């Protein structure tokens, strides 16, 4: 059995940072701490745990940040080494063959922490305050924890039964592997508190940006939904998924100004978007978000920046709310409470988000796969995944 294993190695981590800075996103892997090894599957941590054999496992932006040596030191205490990456997983439960998607957050229930923390008690699993504690090694999710394994492995991973969601038969593997990132988008969209009639801008049209657009169209009723998309296929997909206006990233502020009929002063709009969802997460995108949000508007940060440099004068002066959105849990929608993953499955099915899977690679071509994911937009791709069902890769 083979798995991609990420080990703690400061020298290789630094080398990957340099390589990605020179060669671009996804290029750090060649010199970084990730290695393909023969491994045994992880031990079951307790009686309510199952072994899951991955079928497809996605490569996420946060994975790329780790492999390129760009992840924040903030995570040092809440990951454990060595770990097998891969938290966007569709797999089969060993023994039953049930096809499942894995909700990877390792909350209090999975960790055996009792009583649970406030967040887990409220079923906001993504906000678990005990991800470094309990009977498991630290790890905010499967894919960052030494005890659970991850999706980039043919040896399988282990997951608590509460982390598993059976996949309906009419949802194929491509669609199922999109459930986890879509759940992030669903949570962000609900957290963004969009009111009917709002003007909303989404920065970025990669996997998360497009999933946000799809979720926004299904769960909210913005009057105008604008999307900043860099590449032609992203523009097309954003339109297909329900964007009213798609603009090049550097033109999005202008487009928002036009829609809101604002004036401009001090680099900001006097009106602007009621809500901005930043799915890029960089100094530049945050500055753009501040430039296009209306006074007292709300910026929801779905992208995952570490250290950024930002002029916050307009944030406090215009009383803008900047909130983070991470992972998932339980959501209040239309007066009912539903698990975010259940909502995400609906969005994936109705918006046909399986089409966002552009390329599938076997584990042994991991350098190619990660380079492809790092250059996905430029290469006309959206989601690149590892195909653990076969040793052959396909790209579409």
């Amino acid at each position, binding site marked *: 059995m083979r798995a991609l294993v990420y080990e703690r190695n400061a020298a290789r981590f630094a080398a990957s940072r340099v390589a990605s800075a020179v060669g671009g996103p996804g290029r750090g892997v060649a010199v970084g701490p990730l290695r393909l090894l023969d491994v045994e599957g992880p031990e079951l941590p307790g009686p309510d745990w199952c072994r899951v054999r991955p079928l497809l496992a996605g490569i996420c932006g946060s994975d790329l940040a780790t492999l390129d040596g760009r992840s924040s030191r903030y995570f040092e205490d809440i990951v454990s080494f060595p770990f097998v990456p891969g938290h966007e997983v569709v797999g089969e439960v060993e023994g039953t063959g049930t096809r499942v998607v894995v909700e990877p957050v390792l909350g209090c229930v999975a960790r055996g922490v009792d009583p649970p923390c406030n967040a887990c008690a409220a079923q906001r699993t993504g906000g678990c305050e005990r991800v470094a504690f309990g009977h498991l090694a630290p790890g905010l999710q499967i894919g960052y924890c030494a005890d659970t394994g991850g999706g980039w492995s043919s040896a399988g991973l282990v997951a608590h039964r509460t982390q598993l969601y059976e996949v309906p038969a009419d949802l194929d593997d491509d669609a199922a592997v999109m459930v986890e990132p879509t759940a992030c988008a669903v949570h962000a969209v609900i957290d963004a508190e969009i009111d009917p009639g709002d003007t909303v801008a989404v920065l970025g049209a990669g996997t998360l940006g497009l999933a946000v657009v799809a979720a926004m169209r299904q769960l909210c009723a913005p009057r105008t939904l604008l999307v900043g998309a860099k590449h032609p296929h992203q523009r097309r997909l954003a339109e297909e998924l329900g964007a009213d*206006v798609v*603009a*090049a990233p550097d*033109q999005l502020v*202008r*487009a928002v*100004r*036009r829609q809101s*009929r*604002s*004036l*401009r002063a001090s680099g900001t709009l006097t009106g602007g978007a009621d809500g901005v969802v930043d799915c890029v997460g960089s100094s530049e995108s945050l500055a753009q978000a501040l430039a296009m949000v209306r006074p007292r508007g709300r910026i929801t940060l779905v992208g995952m920046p570490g250290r950024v440099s930002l002029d916050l004068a307009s944030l406090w002066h215009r009383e803008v709310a900047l909130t983070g959105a991470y992972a998932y849990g339980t959501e209040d929608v239309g007066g009912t409470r539903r698990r975010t993953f259940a909502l995400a499955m609906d969005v994936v099915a109705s918006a046909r988000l399986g089409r966002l899977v552009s390329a599938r690679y076997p584990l042994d071509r991991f350098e190619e796969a990660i380079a492809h994911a790092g250059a996905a937009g430029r290469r006309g791709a959206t989601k690149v995944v590892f195909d653990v069902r076969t040793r052959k890769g396909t790209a579409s």
Partner: protein
Amino acid sequence: MSPRPGFVLEVDRSTPPTLFWHGEGYRLEQLPVGSRVLYAPEPHAPLPDPVGAIRHALEHPLGDRDPLPALLRPGMSLTIAFDDVSLPLPPMRRPDVRQLVIEQVLDMAAEAGVDDVVLIAALALHRRMTEAELRHALGDRVYDAFAPAGLLRQHDAEDPDALVHLGLTDQGEDVEISKRAATSDLLVYVNINLVAMDGGHKSVATGLASYKSLRHHHNARTMAHSRSFMDQHRSELHSSNRRMGRLIAASGVNVFQIETTLNTDTFPEQFRFLQRREWEWSTRDRAGFLATSRALDATPDRLARSIFHSIKSPHKMTSVQAGEVEAVHARTTEHVYTQQMVDIEGQSDILTMGLPYICPYNVNSIMNPILVACLGLGYFFNLYRGRPLVREGGVVIMSHPTPWAFHPGHHPSYIDFFEQVLAETTDPAEIGKYEESFATDPWYVHLYRTGHAYHGVHPFYMWYWCAHALEHVGAVIVVGGDRAAVRRLGFKPASSMSDALEMAADVVGRDPSLTHLHTPPLMLANVT
């Protein structure tokens, strides 16, 4: 020696390459044997005594008008409106003809004891002129006498307090113009007629009007029915302005029109090869061409733009006439035709043109892709009487670098128009649905009124200007343009003239006929 008339050259094997303008540069192209090249008449001799000619015109008006001195009296209000920075092209050397005319009008007003005098730049929806541009047009003496006291104004088509609605024409067209101009005892309009489209009722009815008024004739339907708008009797644009102008007169607005014409001596000595026929180039012309070509090749775009926009034209005045609008304009038009008309028989499959760095809307600015389209398809395509130079379904090939670049201060709404409207449709009839939202956008209105921005609706007008050509031709190809920008315009990019001709063959077939409009200088093709 009298200037030679324009003529049509048929290209043969001995014909040297033909000069094409190409933005801030030029190219030599070998046109296919059998192509026709239209050369403009040579520049006419200027008036020997322009100051005397102006005085004579003011004292001997045309039509039913008293001499200007007889219209001036103490206690009256006098408004002098004048054409803005869009004329002439390139800007002429000092003294500008507007300065010469206005100084004499002011002298007469002073002699008559007229104290209440206001000057208004007739911007319509164009950008406000800078102090330097106003000083250039009016001269320092006039500027310093009027500007500090607030008596030199720029028409503000968005100031409701400064406009007056005079009524509707019999076609239901709103006529809303500058209140100061309309309520003055006398409105003197000082015009420069560079091409046959300029002047006449269009001076006041367009130059001093509001959006509410302009939208009646600046639209896709009117432009598509102006064939061409260089021929005022076959131009719906001019018919509408005529109706408005007559309503303005019937409303009691007392207009004294002064129109001038210029010869086509367009570029200074170091660029004289631009206006000469290639086979007549002297050694000095060839040296000038080579030297400037090489220098421009090594010059950054921004610097090249700055160099070209610093050129002041040696244009000279060839006529001046004053009095009643229609009588004056008839005489003016005769002078324009005499200077610019070239007879040519029959249309061709392909029309080629080299587009320069400048058009009426980018003086001291950037020729953005929308303006490239407007100059080629709006202006040059329409430089005809009778029939277009290219047959219906034919191909227009334009040579211009067409950079994806905009002046953010002058053309803010152009950027959004290009990014948002043209990305969706390039059909002039279709874009109308976005017009009002641009025209009433408060940010554009603010920039137009307080900065140096063209009005929010202006890019729509540029595209409407292309309506006739877009309806008429089968394809538009741009040689040497930014490929993405050209495609956004709905045109086809070609890297060379030979590529463009290959591409044109898909539309008009093999061995097409070709006519090249050789500019500078400007001309008007009389196509029979």
